[in-house]
Each structure stands twice: as structure tokens, then as C-alpha cells.
């Protein structure tokens, strides 16, 4: 049985809270038994004049509880709380990160919706059952889950149960039956999987379109053209709708700001040129990943599925292996280009297994469970301090 909760804290020894009656009793006793100090005086007539001057009609003063008694009560209260063994409730302290797998297989049909719909529904149900009060951050994850995602405050939402399973993170997997259908496109030829065999469908896929806005430097434009030709795609500068890849390029324009010199490279090549500021970090709310950065760490090419942002307006012939330059950029275009609608890799189309939930509440000491173990010690220390000050005041103070 878990420890009872009160005030967003767990109390390992809840009976200790009964000791909270002690400070209440002390305060009540102080009010009941407090008597004013009795002092004999031969100048009572003067005090009567003082009372008259102060316009106090009652002969009874407001009996106040001495500070020492308040401190004693506070010390007893803190001691009672320490005795009850408080610790931060994991539920109260956890902020949950939910990583939603956005790989193509998540869009395969499952029941009335998709695998993603089912997985998200399972995740929401688990959250409502276990951590209804916890703040939740939903994050789309387009790349595979990695070790950096294996955190105690993280829940993976996917279709296939990960193997090996994460050690600290939880996961929900929607499962799903195999979904035969298109698995690849080569030019205008489409390849389908019928559940057992791969079937070639000539002219089964429309030409893919790559839209380039602005002017790409010649070395990049040449590689793009060669890549598109090999992939059976058309490159134009038209409407971005129904395109498989949009390459955002720029014109040298005063409105775009001044260009700056850049020297960057990767994969065995290096090139000098000019860029119009850093590459965009997001596009339409979707974060873009840095593909190429200069020596200062400024992104000069970013990308995501369907998008490449390339602020280069001038590029000299790259140095190094010319083939390396072409292979490097071609791989970028392969990673960025969208699959034709309905085309999902074979591995993604295979059965995702059964529904599965492996999730747990974080235990104490798992990162974000914030230091609840020292509560009783601090409370006891504060209680001792209050009592000592109260004793000192009572002993050396003039009254109380």
C-alpha cells in the first residue's frame, strides 16, 4: 500500500501527524492559563489616568500569547511534521515527456483509425489513470528512439514494442496487423508488398516533384539535378503543393540582410562561400535538424522530412574529393525526400505485434524526483531551533 498523500506530499508515518494536536493544545493552554503579571504599586491613580488617556474602557487587556509560546508551538508543529516522515509525491513532482513515434508505420490503419491513433489513446488512458495531475509535454519524434530518450520521466508512444525495451522510460505500443501495400518507388515504378511477395507495378507512381525556391549555388544545384534524375523526380520552382521535397534557397536581396562569408564542410568535402544568416531552425512549427554547420557552430543547412533550408547564395568549387561532395548531398536529399503517399517501407508494413504497455511511476532518486529525502531532517532542525529560541526567550525575556 502506498504512503498516504496530503498536501502533495507522501507521509511514511502518517500517525505522526496526530502530534499536530500538541501545538494546538499549547496555544489553547496559553490562552486559558495566561494571567497578567500582578504588580503592587502605590501609583495606581497614575495608571488610571493612563488608561483614560488611551481611551480603553475595558479593565481587561488583550491577553496576547507570548512570542516564546508561539515559537514553542511552531517547534512542536515542525517536529510533528518531521515525525510523520514527509516526502515529495512522485506524482506531484513528475513532469511527463511523451515521445510520439511519427515513423510511416504509425500511419498504417488499425481499427477505425491508425496505429498512431490507437497508441496515443493508450497513452492518454495510462496518464489519466496514473498521473492525472502531472504536466505532460507531447513531442513528435521522427527519428528512432535513442539512449538519450531512455529517461524516467519519458513515455514512448509507438506501434512496435521496442526491443530491447528501455531501462528507465516507459512505452505504449499499439501493435497492429501487417498492412500490405506500396513499399517503395523507383522513378515511376512502384513496388508493392502483398503480405507475402513484392510485386512490381510499372508506371504505378507519379513523378515526384522537387521544388526549389530561390537560387541554389551551382555546385549544389548540379548535385540536386543529378540526384533527381536518378530518382525519377522533376525539379522545378513551382507550387510546393504535392511536392516530395522543398529546397528553400535564397536570392541575394537587401531585404534578406547582408551575406556573410562561411567556410564549412562534412563527409570529406569543404567549401567556401556566402550565406544569408543561419539556416532556419524550424519551418511551419516543425523543428529542422542541422545538417551542416560552420566552424562557429552556426547551422548553414538544416532539414526535415520534406524540407531542406539552404541559405547559401554563393559557393566556390568544393575542395576535397568531388565525389564525396555529390554523395554527401545526395544522401541529404534521400533522407529529406518524402515517400510518395501510401508508400511505407516493408519493415514498417509488417505486423507490429500485440498491444503492450510497460510504464511505471518513477521511484525516489530517479532524476527529477526532487530531493524529498531530506525533508524530515530539515523539519527536525527547524523544530529544534524554534524550541531553543522559545526556551531562551522564556528564560531571559521579561515576560512570557
Amino acid at each position, binding site marked *: 500500500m502506498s504512503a498516504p498523500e496530503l498536501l502533495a506530499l507522501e507521509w511514511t508515518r502518517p500517525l505522526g501527524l496526530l502530534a499536530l494536536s500538541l501545538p494546538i493544545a499549547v496555544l489553547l493552554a496559553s490562552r486559558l492559563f495566561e*494571567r*497578567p*503579571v*500582578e*504588580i*503592587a*504599586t*502605590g*501609583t*495606581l*491613580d*497614575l*495608571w*488610571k*489616568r*493612563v*488608561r483614560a*488617556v*488611551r481611551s*480603553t474602557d475595558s*479593565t*481587561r*487587556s*488583550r*491577553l*496576547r500569547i*507570548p512570542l516564546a509560546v508561539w515559537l514553542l508551538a511552531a517547534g512542536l508543529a515542525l517536529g510533528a511534521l518531521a515525525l510523520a516522515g514527509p516526502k515529495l509525491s512522485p506524482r506531484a513532482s513528475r513532469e511527463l515527456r511523451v515521445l510520439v513515434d511519427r515513423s510511416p508505420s504509425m500511419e498504417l490503419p488499425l481499427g477505425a483509425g491508425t496505429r498512431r491513433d490507437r497508441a496515443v489513446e493508450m497513452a492518454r488512458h495510462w496518464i489519466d489513470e496514473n498521473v492525472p495531475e502531472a504536466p505532460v509535454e507531447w513531442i513528435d519524434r521522427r527519428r528512432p528512439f535513442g539512449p538519450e530518450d531512455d529517461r524516467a520521466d519519458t513515455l514512448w508512444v509507438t506501434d512496435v514494442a521496442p526491443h530491447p525495451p528501455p531501462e528507465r522510460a516507459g512505452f505504449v505500443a499499439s501493435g497492429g496487423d501487417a498492412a500490405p501495400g506500396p513499399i517503395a518507388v523507383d522513378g515511376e515504378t512502384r513496388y508493392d508488398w502483398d503480405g507475402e511477395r513484392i510485386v512490381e507495378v510499372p508506371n504505378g507512381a507519379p513523378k515526384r516533384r522537387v521544388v526549389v525556391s530561390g537560387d541554389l549555388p551551382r555546385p549544389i544545384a548540379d548535385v540536386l539535378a543529378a540526384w533527381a534524375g536518378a530518382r525519377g523526380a522533376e525539379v522545378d520552382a513551382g507550387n510546393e503543393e504535392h511536392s516530395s521535397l522543398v529546397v528553400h534557397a535564397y536570392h541575394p536581396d537587401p531585404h534578406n540582410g547582408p551575406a556573410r562569408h562561411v567556410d564549412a564542410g562534412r563527409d570529406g568535402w569543404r567549401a567556401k562561400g556566402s550565406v544569408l544568416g543561419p539556416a532556419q531552425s524550424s519551418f511551419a512549427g516543425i523543428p529542422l535538424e542541422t545538417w551542416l554547420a560552420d566552424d562557429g557552430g552556426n547551422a548553414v543547412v538544416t532539414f526535415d522530412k520534406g524540407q531542406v533550408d539552404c541559405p547559401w547564395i554563393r559557393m566556390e568549387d568544393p575542395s576535397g574529393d568531388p565525389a564525396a561532395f555529390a554523395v554527401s548531398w545526395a544522401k541529404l536529399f534521400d533522407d529529406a525526400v518524402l515517400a510518395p503517399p501510401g508508400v511505407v517501407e516493408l519493415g514498417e508494413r509488417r505486423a507490429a505485434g500485440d498491444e503492450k504497455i510497460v510504464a511505471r511511476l518513477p521511484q525516489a532518486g530517479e532524476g527529477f524526483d526532487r530531493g524529498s529525502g531530506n525533508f524530515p531532517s530539515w523539519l527536525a532542525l527547524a523544530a529544534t531551533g524554534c524550541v531553543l529560541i522559545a526556551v531562551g526567550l522564556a528564560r531571559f*525575556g*521579561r*515576560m*512570557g
Partner: protein
Amino acid sequence: MRSGATRSLPCPGVRFEEGFARRLEAFGARLAAARERRESGGAARVAGGGTEFVGFRPYALGDDPRTIDWDLVARSGRAWVKVSRREAGERWLIALDTTASMGVGPPGKLQRAAEVAAALASLAVAAGARVQIVARSREREPRLFEVARRPDLVLLLAFLEELRAHGSRPDHPMPRVPPDASRVFLVGDLRDSSPEEALALRRRGRELALVQILAPIEILPPQGGAVEWWDPEEGATLTLEVDSTARGAYETELAREIELWRTACAQRGVPYSCSSSASTFEEILLKSAVA
């Protein structure tokens, strides 16, 4: 609410420390030396002796040996002491307040008043005067003690130690003064009389001095918290929160009352002083300009 009569006074009695008599003698010697210096060029104090020679009288045990006229001893074979005009036949009255309010303290007001009275009596004896000490309160008949010679001082101390602060304000707060009393001292807290009543004792041929003694708690009350003040004479009580405001108001009232006494006495040329019972009797008498 309990009546004041059922409560006990903090300092009702008198107890002289060992060596108190020596303190009296030392104080007397100190004043005599100071008087000699003054009388060589100034007026005598109320409790001091004059130097105008008016005659002789036989030496009595306890007389100051310095007053012996050695020429007369040589001629007569007997010891004779000089008598000054002021000393001859002087009769002093020391009215000691022993009402219940004198039991307030510590230090007790009656204790200090008794010491002052004993010191005045010692000065009287040194000056060759007869002194009557009268202790007055309502519930008892006035208690009297006469001191004429130095050996009487020991008995005076015993008399004073039997006194207890008790009772309320007498119907007639002022003592009955013998017609031949040339000096009257009122020693107490003066809470039972008005300046007019006290100053009425002053008349031609009779000097009056007022020595007011208050307890420290009556001069500077403690601050903080509720206090139930009780009057030991009337039994009345008053509960009040003694904060800084109340304390300040009390000090103002007390200062006003002391100023009333001071002004009234100054107008009549009557020495007046207000001292704390925390002061020694020496300090009180020196401050009072009586000695």
C-alpha cells in the same frame, strides 16, 4: 478578582544589614566635615547644626567629644559641652509613612524610608536635638519613638525593624506636630497627601523637608505584556497592556505629579526630593539637600 488585602506585599518589612550603624556614623562624619567647610562661608542645611554659642551643658555619654570645652574641664574638673543656639532645645519630628503602599518594591520603600529616618535621627543626635519618629497608617495607632542620645539609636533601629507596611491612608494623613518641633521631615511616598496638606506643616520657626521615595517599578515600569496593577491600600486593581505607549503616558503623568510637588515646595522654600528606593539612604539625603 482577589482584593489587595489578600495579596502579599513584596517588601513589607525592614531589616538593617550588619554594619548599618557604622554607616550612619560615617555618614554623619562626612556631613560634619562638609558642614564645617560650608559654615566657614555659607548657610547651614536643614539638618545641620549652627555655630552660634549659647551656653554649656554637662557631657552625656554619646555626645560628640569635639564639643567638649576643655578649658572648662580644666577649671571645673567636669566635662561640659558647648551648646549652639540652633541646637539648644531643638526638637525634630520625623514622620514615617508605613501605609501598605510603602511595601512596594523591591527594594522596599519602607526599608529605604526607615534607613533615611535612622540617618536623620543620627544627625539630630549629633546636632544635640531630640527627635521623635512617628510611624503612621490607618489601621494602627501611630507608633512613636524618641531619640535623645546616641545610645538611643540602637533601640531606634530595633523599633524600625518592627515596622510593617500595612493599612491604608490615615484619615488625617499629616502627623500631629508638637508645638515645639523646629524641624519636621516627611519621609514616604507622599501618595496619601497633597502638596497643600504637606506644606501646611510649614510655619514660622518650623522648617519642613519632604523626602519622597518611590520604588523602581513605580518610576520606570517594565514594558511588554499585560500587567494587573494592584493597590495594596485600597485593594483596587487595573489590568493594562504595558506597551511603549502606555509606558510613555505613565512617565508623563508621574513627571507631571513630581513637578507639582517640586513647584509647590519651591514656592514655599521647602526642600523636596523624589528618589528611588534603589538609591542608598546617603544618596537620598544628599540629593534632598536636607543633609
